């Protein structure tokens, strides 16, 4: 009889252990995983120990088993407290908790961003952003400007709106991209600059530098006339800057936060001449690193202007707030609706609704389901008719091609469109 009871206890323990492991693999953030692993894991191990002691029935076994059990129960709370504290301080993300719901805010010192991201930024020599809180409308003291009232003295436009537009004239898609940038510049009445950055660093990596440079210059000269024609058509004067050097440095680190940078989604720097380099990959990863180096907003634009919905990956950070503001004020897209994906607390929800109501854009909130964004930043079921995406940061790691996935596939599988990022 006692054998049967012991067996049942062991089985219950086993179930707890398996569930704990499942939780460890499936839960979304560090603290949820810790919750599964420490509580259920300890209970499971303890029950298996008790079952074994019952089976054995000797004094020796009971003694060692009880000691192990006692020690487990005494130490697990302390150990997991220390680990949870360290994880919180290292800036691990809190899934499902909005920026206003963090009960520990101000109690413990907490890193601005996850430790792993800081390490990656250090490797790329990128400035870590200072601590920023989402701006409340009353704090800024702004009324939302619409139409003619846009140029008010303390309007949001003055605070965040760009004063200049710069775009990268690179690759064969450049004329189409120039049209996008010119359209936007004309609508917002901003001066437009085109930068033709000839990447000598890329040329140096090829076997014949002079030949590659000649190919790239030829490529540029084929579409340069189109750019001039566009300048005449759109009635926006285009300042053309031609420079040779490190393309990454030429595009970033020149403008300030008032400069709106328009970049292509692919085809960076090699101007699509397709000469092989000695590097294992000639994927233009520096294209994605510009976001972190340019202080102003950056838009990765596809060739066609489209009207449709705009999706936001909301994490409550300052970056995503000003991205939303910029999209609403400047009418970057012909926006039919705004879809906000993420855990949005009540305060932020009302704030977003009021901002959208002022420019007559309907807004929908989509709450994440467990585990649906493991592979991509946004779930594919909300991407129907989405032309633009506002992100707090680009999907990490910053590689254009990551094991065969184009970087936009990591935003949403199979999706192509405009991406607005402002870090």
């Amino acid at each position, binding site marked *: 009889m006692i054998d049967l009871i012991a067996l049942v206890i062991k089985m219950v323990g086993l179930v707890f252990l398996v569930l*704990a492991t499942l939780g460890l693999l499936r839960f979304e953030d560090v603290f949820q995983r810790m919750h599964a692993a420490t509580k259920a894991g300890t209970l499971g191990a303890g029950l298996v120990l008790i079952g*074994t002691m019952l089976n054995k029935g000797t004094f020796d076994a009971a003694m060692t088993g009880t000691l*192990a059990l006692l020690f487990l129960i005494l130490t697990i709370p302390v150990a997991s407290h220390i680990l949870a504290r360290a994880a919180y301080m290292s800036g691990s993300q809190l899934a499902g908790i909005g920026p206003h719901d963090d009960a520990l805010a101000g109690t413990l010192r907490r890193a601005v961003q996850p430790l792993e991201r*800081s390490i990656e930024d250090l490797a790329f020599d990128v400035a870590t952003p200072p601590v920023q809180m989402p701006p409340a409308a009353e704090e800024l003291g702004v009324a939302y400007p619409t139409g003619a009232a846009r140029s008010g003295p303390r309007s949001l436009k003055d605070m965040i709106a760009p004063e200049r537009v710069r775009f990268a004239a690179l690759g064969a898609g450049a004329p189409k991209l120039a049209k996008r940038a010119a359209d936007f510049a004309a609508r917002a009445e901003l001066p437009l600059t085109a930068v033709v950055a000839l990447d000598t660093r890329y040329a140096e990596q090829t076997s014949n530098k002079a030949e590659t440079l000649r190919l790239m210059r030829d490529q540029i000269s084929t579409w340069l006339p189109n750019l001039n024609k566009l300048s005449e058509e759109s009635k926006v004067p285009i300042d053309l800057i031609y420079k040779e050097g490190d393309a990454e440095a030429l595009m970033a680190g020149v403008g300030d936060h008032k400069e709106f940078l328009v970049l292509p989604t692919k085809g960076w720097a090699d101007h699509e001449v397709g000469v092989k380099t000695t590097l294992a990959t000639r994927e233009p990863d520096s294209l994605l690193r510009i976001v972190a180096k340019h202080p102003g907003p950056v838009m990765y634009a596809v060739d066609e202007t489209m009207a449709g919905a705009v999706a936001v990956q909301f994490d409550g950070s300052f970056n995503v707030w000003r991205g939303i503001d910029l999209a609403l004020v400047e009418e970057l897209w012909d926006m039919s609706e705004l879809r906000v994906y993420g855990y949005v607390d009540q305060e932020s929800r009302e704030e977003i609704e009021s901002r959208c109501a002022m420019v007559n854009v309907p807004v929908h909130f989509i709450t994440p389901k467990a585990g649906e964004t493991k592979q991509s930043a946004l779930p594919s079921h909300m991407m129907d008719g989405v032309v633009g995406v506002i992100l707090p940061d680009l999907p990490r790691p910053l590689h254009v091609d990551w094991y065969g996935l184009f970087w936009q596939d990591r935003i949403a599988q199979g999706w192509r469109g405009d991406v607005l990022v402002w870090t």
Partner: protein
Amino acid sequence: MSIEAITAFIDPIITLMIIIVVGALVAASIKVISGPSYADRFIAVDMLTGLAIAVCALTALSSGRDEFLDVAFGFALIAFLATVAFGAFLERKVEVVARRVEEAAAKRSALKGEEA
């Protein structure tokens, strides 16, 4: 089915249980490797010791040797030390990275000053 008939099956059942726990061990080890963050790995290591204790207890039954319970006790001791050490390491790592970020920022602003 009488109790005796069921007790005859206990040994294979325990072997089966060990196999299941080892499967969980493999899954937790995958989490140790895949991470993605430091804290995730440490939690997975914590989970590994819990599973190892269960394996030890079950092995003590199936092999009939009490020494495996001593091994389980040892694991319980090590788990605590390891987790505390990991926690301390993580807190120190945060400080070191914060200092390096500050240094990088200082270097960057110094470079900007030179340009201007």
